[in-house]
């Protein structure tokens, strides 16, 4: 399979930005998990592990983003991904809420 033309490496740069973000989210989820283990809050540990799972799914999606962008552009469709953006926003809000809960508990 030949790579689609990607002037300015738009698809690749966007895919890498997703990867960076997913890795950062993994670190945040690991910190939440550690918080749960250290403070003996089982709920927080479970929440941290769940969020880590979502972050890993995001990392897999990040790797696939390059080809999904290339396909959309080649097909003349907009490559904007509302579901991905929503998923990531929800992940960040859940991480922030978990941290707030942990500090206030």
């Amino acid at each position, binding site marked *: 399979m030949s790579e689609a033309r990607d002037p300015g490496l738009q698809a690749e740069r*966007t895919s890498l*930005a997703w990867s960076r973000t997913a890795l*950062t989210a993994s670190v*945040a989820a690991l*910190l939440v998990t550690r918080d749960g283990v250290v403070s003996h809050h089982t709920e927080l540990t479970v929440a941290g592990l769940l969020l880590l799972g979502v972050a890993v799914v995001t990392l897999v999606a990040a790797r696939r983003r390059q080809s999904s962008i290339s396909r959309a552009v080649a097909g003349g469709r*907009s490559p904007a991904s509302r579901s991905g953006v929503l998923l990531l*926003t929800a992940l*960040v809000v859940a991480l*922030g809420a978990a941290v707030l809960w942990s500090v206030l508990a």
Partner: protein
Amino acid sequence: MAGRARAGRLLAVSEPKWWEQGADPDYRFSLANERTFLAWIRTALAFIAAAVALEQLVPSFSVHGVRTALSILLAVFGLVAGVGAYRHWARSERAMRLGAPLPHSPLLLVLSVGLVVVAVVVMVVLLVPSP
């Protein structure tokens, strides 16, 4: 298509009206908007990580309660930046579809002021000698 719309309703994330309005923008602009969103999300995650690190790894400041207050403040900034990232992405995408001017984001000012407040509080607390 119908199945997809139904799934969207179930998840309460049905496509907003603007998603189909106007014309598809230049794909490079959409992708630039997406990368800007991701940069804001990383900023939000950094705030959240800082909140956890402050609570878990930093020994208590000489002034009681300041560490917890700063930690809460940082976590709230993380939430604000995360929700603001989505809002700014959606408003920019909509503006590009309609050919309207790009929206101004209040996030820059809010988070800059917030960070200055955090820095000043930390500086003051570090200068107060422990009892």
